[in-house]
């Protein structure tokens, strides 16, 4: 094995570790690059990956961060904050009443965590033209942002972007498939 290969492998392990530790962190935590995370509540389970014992002398480390989701309200499947999708009617940017509790929960979290930042990603189904759908996706993300503003969330905590139909599941044959594409996704910075 050449030195270059070794470095590449090591770098890969480090990147994986950093990505995984970032996943389980709360949004205000911006970790320095490193494999170990010793902050409270971040007791990652580390173990050597199976089947990778080779002649290089480097053991790949895999961090299993799923064990600790209970400490992060954003990741706790039982917490409404883990719900991130707001769905829309065809060619509409109206936020439906059923998503009110979801938006209120995230707004409360943002007001309580002034450093938290979220990105609203607008999406549309594939029907219509790409540029119009880009605009429609943007209007959806702006519409959700306005709901947040009304609940006291500051502009600087929210960025609105649109992917239009570019991330849509293509070739939808049924309406439920289109419906799944018409949404705003809530993503927190550093997630």
């Amino acid at each position: 094995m050449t030195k270059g290969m070794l470095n590449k492998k090591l770098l890969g392990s480090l990147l994986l570790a950093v990505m995984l530790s970032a996943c389980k962190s709360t949004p205000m935590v911006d970790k320095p690059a490193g494999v170990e995370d010793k902050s409270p509540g971040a007791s990652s389970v580390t173990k050597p990956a199976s089947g990778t014992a080779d002649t290089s002398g480097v053991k790949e480390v895999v961090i299993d961060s799923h064990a600790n989701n209970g400490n992060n309200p954003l990741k706790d499947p039982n917490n409404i904050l883990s719900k991130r999708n707001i769905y829309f009617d065809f060619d509409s940017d109206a936020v439906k009443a059923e998503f009110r509790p979801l938006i209120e929960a995230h707004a409360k979290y943002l007001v309580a965590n002034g450093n938290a930042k979220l990105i609203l990603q607008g999406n549309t189904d594939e029907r219509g033209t790409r540029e119009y759908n880009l605009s429609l996706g943007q209007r959806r993300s702006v519409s959700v942002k306005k709901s947040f503003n009304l609940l006291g969330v500051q502009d600087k905590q929210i960025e609105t972007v649109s992917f239009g139909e570019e991330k849509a599941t293509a070739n939808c044959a049924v309406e439920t498939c289109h419906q799944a594409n018409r949404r705003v996704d809530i993503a927190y910075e550093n997630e």
Partner: protein
Amino acid sequence: MNKLRPVLFFVISLFTSLIISPANAALEIEISGGSAQQIPIAVVPFGTLPVGQSSNVAQVSNIIGADLRRSGLFRVLETGGVVNRPTDIAQVKYAEWAALQAQALVVGNIEGLPGNRLKVSFKLADVLKQTQLAGMEYNIAPNQLRMTAHKIADVIYQKLTGEAGIFASRIAYINKSKGRYTLQVADADGENPQTVVSSNEPIISPAWSPDGSKIAYVSFEKKKPIIFVQSLMTGQRLTLANFKGNNSAPAWSPDGTKLAIVLTYAANSQVYTINADGTGLKQLTKSSAIDTEPTWSPDAKWVYFSSDRGGRPQIYKVSSIGGEAQRVTFEGTGNLSPRFSPDGKLLAMIRNDGGKYRVALQDLTNGQVQLLSEGGQDESPSFAPNGRVLLYATRTGGRGALAAVSSDGRVKQRLSESGGDIREPAWGPLLN
């Protein structure tokens, strides 16, 4: 300049099941329909020096014949059974070609010149009158042979139909394959595709500068839409617009000094103009609705755009120096993606009729509208430089493909790449 990718595959079928498929192909063209009065024309294989020339040389007459056939205005006659193969007008025995029912005849010759140059000459003859109609000579580098064949086809087309040709032009499109998005430029016949830029994030809305030297496009490479302008010759890339929010829908002004673009930094999509070097941003439309998909009228006086300010999206126009917008379209569930014919008399658009998106053509002199396509998700209409053909994106078998239709609706073509998902076509200007 990117390397050529000679992995093309052509299927040309016209009325009959005639299929020509040179090896190594990937883009397929199918043609249906045609003009009622097609001009019967014979294109004799060009004479060549018996040196080790590339096989491209032998293809010149094939390229000319395929161009003419694809237009739907010509019936290209089979010349395989003809014994005498003239390469100049003096050698033509008109009676033989009259017997084949040819009305027009093309003969030509290719010679090597010093310094690795080629001299390509051709003559176009009227078989019935037994006279020469046109003749040209080209002194070219060997890699210009294909484009020279297209230029010859343009001369023939112009001479016999009275209209400017379109064959010596290029098309741009986006190919999505294996999770990568590639902006490609190919000759108007789909051959000779070259990669302009590729990314693992979406690329949309390519737009040719009027001189054909640059392409503006929207890339999501930074996880949001940003407009770039890229020189085809040098690959140099200018970030034209990277403002907060979306940056999209670039449209060149007819003189190439400005672009109309769409930004969302205030709130919803609005149309702005910006100089081609990224300076001098000005807001052109002001509404609380979506205003997008701008396009300039050929006289540069107007910018047409789509907007849902009246409810469903319709096409509006605004003076290119600003002012009140006026509504242009009223029919259909909605209308999107306006595009002018080069003479400014026709407006192509995507019409939504109850969820079916198709190419429509409105005659701006009398307001009449004709539906030109039958698909349900047709998009991105783009006129050929002579205004006679429209290229657009369609769907076939769950994948994106390109289609072309003559502006009278009679001749239809479908261009698809096996395994590829092609969309967002844009027809470039005629090459001089």
